[in-house]
């Protein structure tokens, strides 16, 4: 079982969500995030003072998938979520110990989808 954390552009959320749904992985958590990566951020100007440390708005998507679904899920996020430009975001993949569906108390792969 793997956890995928993908940081994407806010404008790509709809495409990624539609893509994941199309391969039957509809469960995801979305967090509104701010941060900075390698790309230059916009310069913030407030009453004449410039601030180039401004943070970019991004969206973080969290999906927990079974091992066999991992590559399909990552491919969809890459295909639907990137422009091929600096600033597209990053994907992190973690091992997951276990998962429990609270309503039925089912554990493991059966709990995540």
């Amino acid at each position: 079982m793997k956890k995928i954390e993908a940081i994407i552009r806010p404008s790509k959320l709809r495409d990624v969500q539609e893509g994941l749904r199309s391969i039957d992985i509809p469960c995801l958590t979305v967090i509104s995030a701010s941060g900075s990566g390698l790309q230059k951020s916009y310069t913030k100007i407030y009453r004449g003072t410039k601030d180039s440390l401004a943070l970019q708005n991004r969206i973080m998507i969290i999906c927990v998938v079974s091992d066999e679904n991992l590559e399909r899920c990552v491919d969809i996020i890459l295909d639907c979520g990137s422009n091929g430009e600096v600033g597209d975001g990053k994907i992190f993949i973690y091992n997951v110990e276990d998962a429990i569906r609270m309503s039925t108390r089912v554990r493991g792969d059966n709990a995540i989808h």
Partner: protein
Amino acid sequence: MEELTIITAKNFEIVNSIDTVWVALCAALIFFMEAGFAILEAGFVRSKNAMSIIAKVIIDIIFGGIAFFIFGFGIAYGSSNGWISFDLGITDADLGLGLTISNKLFWFIQLGFAIACISIVSGALAERMKLWSYALLVIIFCSIMYPIVANWVWNPNGWLALRGFNDFAGSAAVHTMGGIAALAAAIVLGPRLGKYNKNGSANIIPGHNLPLAATGGFILWFGWFGFNPGSTLAAVGNWELIGIVVVNTFLASAAGGISTMIYTYFSYGKIDITMVINGILAGLVAITAGCNVVDPLSAIIIGVFAGVLVDLGVIYIDKLKIDDPVGAIAVHGINGIFGTIAVGLFASEDGLFFGGGVSLLVTQCIGVLTIAIFSFVVTFIIMKLLKNTIGVRVSREDEIAGIDSASFGVKSYSTYE
């Protein structure tokens, strides 16, 4: 005899003072409607463009206001040949309207009408228009386009005024003018990125703060009680008329809200409260032309139709792939036309339904259609000219990032600081 002259002079002064207080109060209410436009539109757009729409409404007031001072007022209310006049600034001459207020105060209340008219346009152009191009549109609109229409309708020598066209507070001159201009401008500007899919279906782009939008709706509603009753332009001698106008204004707005609430419930299975706000505004727009001449029951009927028309209008405009983020075309354009024509049907003396024959109805139709065509054609040409010279649309990157950070270097909501 001498005593009588003094008393008359005193009466004259008292009348002028009372009327001045009344009109100044209403003019301030109308001016405050700009706050309503600004935050209604801000609530209905995405947070990344919230400041840009506030900026547009500020541009309406500051650029539009100066333009209306230098050129607009003279073109609208100077000595007219029926279509246009060529005065500059605020003239001291008698305008022929039998005013008991100063021309300067009259200018201020008319300024509220002019900037309300262009603020209608700002909503339909939200989230994608270049600000400097918009400022140019505002200047042209408030110095020439709106004043020409105001001249036809409200100048005592205007060709529509002479035909007996009844547009009490501007369903035609303000709302049709603004709403149809919004239509033409939105067509030239094109839809927001991601609004329409390749297969032609529309995506919803929900507003980011609906309580804010609702507050804006309430402020507009509040301001309307300056807009319509203030169009009496005098309190003395109008105390009965002001009551009629206030009651009709309220009844139409409430009826518009009710009919939208019922319509959306039965059409979508759920009440759409953002549409109910638009339904209330639609009722207000529709009663604006006839609030001085219709009975309360007619006002309710007009409001009910307005509330349904705005629902149908929003859906139909979306089907035509004309992107109107706040629904300005349906609220102001469609209901401005409907409200003006409704005067010819429902006026309690000359209306068709009350045995007055068709002459008023014909005049109303001619007037509002001329205004709609004028508004559409001129706005379309000006937007095309702007598009082919300085450009009207922000770059693709800026549109995706949001105009706020791209043009102003700020975010409306700085979460981490």
